[in-house]
């Protein structure tokens, strides 16, 4: 969920002063205000302020917004209810600083949060179906197995794979006298989504090509012809926009404000990236972006369901949200991502593996009139994020600091989580035991 609310101008400082210490204390967990760890459906959450005058200085002032991003298991409304029920004071203190705050009645408060939930135009989850408790349990199971192997390796190496597995299972039975926790089946889309996606692509392809040549009757032919003409028209308009949006060659560097963000990064295994960028003016860019995000959302739901978003294997959760236009008419794109490793690595992975998708999104945005995304041709096919330094500067300068950022498992990478699941699943499997032993 992504709850976006307008902050009352005179409450901005109050809100910051309240949330900042909670954010700083998140690791020590000494805060009396709220303990996010108590929410066992919560993976990650973030509070941050989108400043009213960001990102282009000199434009008409807009109200500051409070964004609350939470990556959860289950239904949003259940989480919202639990959030309020467990920590009503926290929720009231935060949202009494916002426009439209309905008072402390739990039902009204929940309705208020849900009404302001912008969801996501595109949402990626590394491991759909891996709920937080499962992740915790599988971490624990792996710990027991690794320790067992450390202690007994010399005895185990002489045995067959099946014997080793049996010894591990036998050991775990002593750890879990009530029975080794069962492995849950993976969701249908995680297992077969990519096949579905390919079938869908093939179908669209056949209808378009076949339709164009009149195989399926005049109506389909008409539609396919319309689609082809539409694509050509889109290409022409796009190129016109791209030529008009051309950037100058002046190099520009990372601002002082962004350096402050950089200074608190890379101290732990995971990082959070929050970026807000203006969408280029006019409806053409806005609708192009919407379509691109819908495409990414489809890929995320069907294809990228195994901890790998187009070659990037470090993202736990990522979401793209188009913010509604404000009084000045500026529409903005909000991007939030919880990832493993350093910023430099993350951005590098974007460039190395996902240039097309990423450029297709951000080539529709700019930081200010003279601070656009690196020059791009054909939406994503050439240029764009491949201009490494300029792109990194662009990304850096679009970032916002978080007031609060919570991770439920700071010690686990995306790959760790998947490996832990495989280790767990392997306990109940009789095939591929050699591959299973390699996970250990």
């Amino acid at each position: 969920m992504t709850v976006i609310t307008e902050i009352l101008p005179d409450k901005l400082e109050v809100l910051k002063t309240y949330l900042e210490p909670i954010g700083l204390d998140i690791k020590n967990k000494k805060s009396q205000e709220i303990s996010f760890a108590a929410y066992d459906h919560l993976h990650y959450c973030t509070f941050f302020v989108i400043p009213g005058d960001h990102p282009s200085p000199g434009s008409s002032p807009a109200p500051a917004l409070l964004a609350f991003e939470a990556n959860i298991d289950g239904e949003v409304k259940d989480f919202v209810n639990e959030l309020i029920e467990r920590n009503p004071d926290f929720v009231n203190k935060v949202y009494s600083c916002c426009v439209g705050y309905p008072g402390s009645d739990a039902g009204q408060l929940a309705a208020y949060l849900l009404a302001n939930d912008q969801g996501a135009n595109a949402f990626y989850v590394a491991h759909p179906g891996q709920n937080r408790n499962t992740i915790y349990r599988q971490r624990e199971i792996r710990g027991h197995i690794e320790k067992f192997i450390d202690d007994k390796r010399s005895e185990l190496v002489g045995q067959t794979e099946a014997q080793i597995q049996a010894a591990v299972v036998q050991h775990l039975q002593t750890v879990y006298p009530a029975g080794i926790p069962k492995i849950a089946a993976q969701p249908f889309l995680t297992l077969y989504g990519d096949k579905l996606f390919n079938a869908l692509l093939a179908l669209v392809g056949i209808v378009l090509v076949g339709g164009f040549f009149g195989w399926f009757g005049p109506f389909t032919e008409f539609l396919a012809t319309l689609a082809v003409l539409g694509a050509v028209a889109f290409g022409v308009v796009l190129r016109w926009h791209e030529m008009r949006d051309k950037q100058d060659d002046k190099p520009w560097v990372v601002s002082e404000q962004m350096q402050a963000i950089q200074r608190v990064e890379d101290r732990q295994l995971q990082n959070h990236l929050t970026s807000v960028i203006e969408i280029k003016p006019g409806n053409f860019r806005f609708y192009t972006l919407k379509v691109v995000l819908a495409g990414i959302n489809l890929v995320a739901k069907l294809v990228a369901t195994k901890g790998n978003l187009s070659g990037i294997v470090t993202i736990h959760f990522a979401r793209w949200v188009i913010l509604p236009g404000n009084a000045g008419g500026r529409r903005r794109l909000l991007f939030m991502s919880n990832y493993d490793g350093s910023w430099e690595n993350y951005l590098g992975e974007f460039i190395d593996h996902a240039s097309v998708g990423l450029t297709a999104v951000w080539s529709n945005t700019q930081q200010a009139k003279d601070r656009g995304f690196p020059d791009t041709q054909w939406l994503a096919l050439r240029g764009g994020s491949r201009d490494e330094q300029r792109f990194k500067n662009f990304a850096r300068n679009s970032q916002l600091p978080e007031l609060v950022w919570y991770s439920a498992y700071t010690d686990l990478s995306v790959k760790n989580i998947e490996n832990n699941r495989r280790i767990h699943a392997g306990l109940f499997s009789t095939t591929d035991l050699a591959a299973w032993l390699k996970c250990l």
Partner: protein
Amino acid sequence: MTTIKLDEVQGIVFSGYNKYMANASYYLLRIEDAGKTKAWLKNLVDSGRISHGAEKPDDTTENRLNLAISYPGYCKLEADAAKRYSFELSFREGMNSEHRSALLGDRGPNDPGKWNWGNGNKEVDILLILFSKDDAIHAASCSSFEKGFKAAGLSKIDRLDAGAKVQNQHGFVREHFGFADGISDPVVDGFPTVTGAGEIATGEFLLGYPNQYDGKKTQMPVSEQFGANGTYLVFRQLKQNVGEFWQFINDEAKRQGIDPEYLAAKFVGRWKSGAVVAPGEKTDPDKINNSFTFANDKDGTGCPFGSHIRRANPRGVGLGENEAESLKVANRHRILRRGRSYGRFLEDPSQDTGKDERGLLFICLNANIERQFEFVQHTWINNLKFAGLYDEDDPLIGSALETDRKFTIQDEPLRRRVCGFQQFVTTRGGAYFFLPSLTALGMLAAS
């Protein structure tokens, strides 16, 4: 093939002068009087004493001289804030800044607060590297330089001397733990030693030339005239706890019932000879081949995933969908090493009285410190999650975990694990420098 303006580029870019220069001293200097320093610098540049790439040293060459400048040093010579700001952020912040320390793993015993130099009032402005052919010549030129420092407005913070060069049977320089070093320095396009196109673009190590990103040029500081043919130089004094390392290896090998040489080779990823550890191998084949990609060792049963050389350069496995993709990514994060060992070599490496210090004067060159040196150090060497691993850093030089370090040795049917060892390498000092072209040095002197 790229054509480099060799006579513009300082010589150390192309060579560590290991062949003809037996001696090397690293002067860490502070500028006390910028006016005098500029005059001294001008004199040095005009006299043609600073070595460049077009010269071909031979056995009659007596000295080589190179000079790099840190950000604090640049600020003393240049008042223009815009020019200062145009350097990359890591260089401006400095290696000892809080953020960079966290990134590089310089905490605990490596904390800049405990360094010999490069911190607090021992911040270095100028790095002067003096190479000489033999002891007598070196002593004479060092003394002549040292006498001139005061008149040059300079004070000496420290002088670090490289130790004797020890080579193995294949002619590779040996480091203190006993392993052949410097085997896989990048082959760079356009370098005099390289025939044909090199595997790495010139712009990765020299500004003003195409880099690994579709021939783009890395942003140059100050101006094109100043930045071109220069590069960034990273200097770190790394103390090697040789005795502790071999003591641990011997004890642990005994406990696990394996050969200590085998265990140490797994840590490094190479045998002492420099040969990469291949799957199934139990002893040093003493045969060097550096044109491998790990494609034959996808499970890490030869060269472990977490071993030093696999972390320092993962090559063709693990960074992309296929070998080519992975190599492409790996090659965007290479560094060019030009350092030397310091301190006396131990006859028996397990007998280290700890009386005298030994280690590596690590020098590397790169066009972008953040994307190259810092990336390697943070995302590969010190990364607890490297290659899908859990909670282990580089067993040889890692500094992400002070204690209770772990190392997994992939094996069939079951991995072997080594637990509970300490850091074997400690940072004793360091700084980021810019290694200007000869033109840029002249501009600095005249600024």
